[in-house]
């Protein structure tokens, strides 16, 4: 009996700590289920590929949110000089890049059968796709974040590395504004929604899609946070050993 209640306490504390992992699983299951089966608006250029909104677009949202978390921890490091925050900041940036690369990779597949599809009435040449401001802007943004890792790798001293890379992280985040938020809204683009807030404008995205899209963003972001938390735990463990040795 005692062991039983003990187990219950353990289970409930695990639930309290890990509720967001359960939420991530539930939301992503919902994304895959509803994303493939729910009704979507029928557009001749997109047909069923419009469902990529729940996958391709969510990658970019997750990337932005993870980069935001990264810059928050960079600033917290600068305020407290606690090396923990430096580790958090680094790992959030790393997983942010993962989602950025996945956004690119999924974009390649999607555009191959929509914009750059010769069988499509609205065919656009590869040259026109390459001029797409969102492609160039995000490429620059991702390269800046890759430079962040080059910078980190080139400094051996722990405190110096943490301080310089935290400052660079703030710069990298600031450069997200022109590259992925301002420029794509100013230049002609194949991506829809540049007149307002792409994908968040309620007049732009059909209500049937929003009930899947918003949970999908949260689900994918939580998956990113989950992966990040594992990476953070590994780094904290190895660094502890380093400091003890």
């Amino acid at each position, binding site marked *: 009996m005692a062991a039983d209640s003990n187990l219950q306490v353990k289970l409930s504390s695990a639930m309290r700590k890990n509720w967001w992992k359960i939420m991530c699983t539930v939301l992503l299951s919902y994304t895959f289920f509803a994303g493939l089966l729910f009704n979507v608006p029928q557009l001749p250029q997109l047909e069923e590929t419009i469902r*990529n909104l729940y996958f391709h677009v969510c990658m970019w949202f997750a990337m932005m949110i993870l980069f935001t978390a990264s810059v928050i921890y960079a600033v917290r490091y600068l305020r407290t000089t606690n090396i923990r925050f430096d580790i958090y900041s680094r790992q959030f940036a790393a997983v942010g890049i993962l989602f950025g690369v*996945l956004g690119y990779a999924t974009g390649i597949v999607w555009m*191959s*059968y929509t914009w750059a599809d010769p*069988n499509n009435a609205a065919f656009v040449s*590869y040259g026109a796709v390459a001029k797409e401001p969102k492609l160039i802007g995000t490429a620059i943004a991702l390269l800046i974040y890759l430079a962040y890792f080059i910078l980190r790798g080139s400094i051996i001293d722990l405190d110096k590395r943490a301080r310089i890379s935290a400052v660079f992280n703030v710069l990298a985040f600031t450069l997200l504004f022109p590259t992925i938020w301002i420029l794509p809204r100013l230049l002609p683009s194949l991506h829809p929604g540049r007149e307002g807030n792409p994908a968040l404008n309620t007049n732009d995205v059909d209500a049937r899609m929003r009930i899947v899209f918003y949970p999908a963003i949260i689900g994918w972001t939580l998956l990113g946070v989950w992966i990040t938390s594992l990476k953070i735990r590994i780094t904290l463990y190895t660094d502890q050993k380093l400091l003890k040795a």
Partner: protein
Amino acid sequence: MKGILLLVFFSSLFFYATGQSAPLQNGGIDHLMRSNGRIFVVVSVMLVILTGIIFYLIRIERKIKRIEKDAV
């Protein structure tokens, strides 16, 4: 090994992109991708994400294995 896996992953993306060079072709993967309202484009996008995340998790797992070895 990791390099080979990454190479396979990224070259599979160009496999999708080769649809452009042969317009109005009606065979093989291209035909499949355009059937049923191009739903298979969504399926491939989902597979790309899944593959990417699993590769990333394998990398993390390798790191953990190395740490476990050091701990013993």
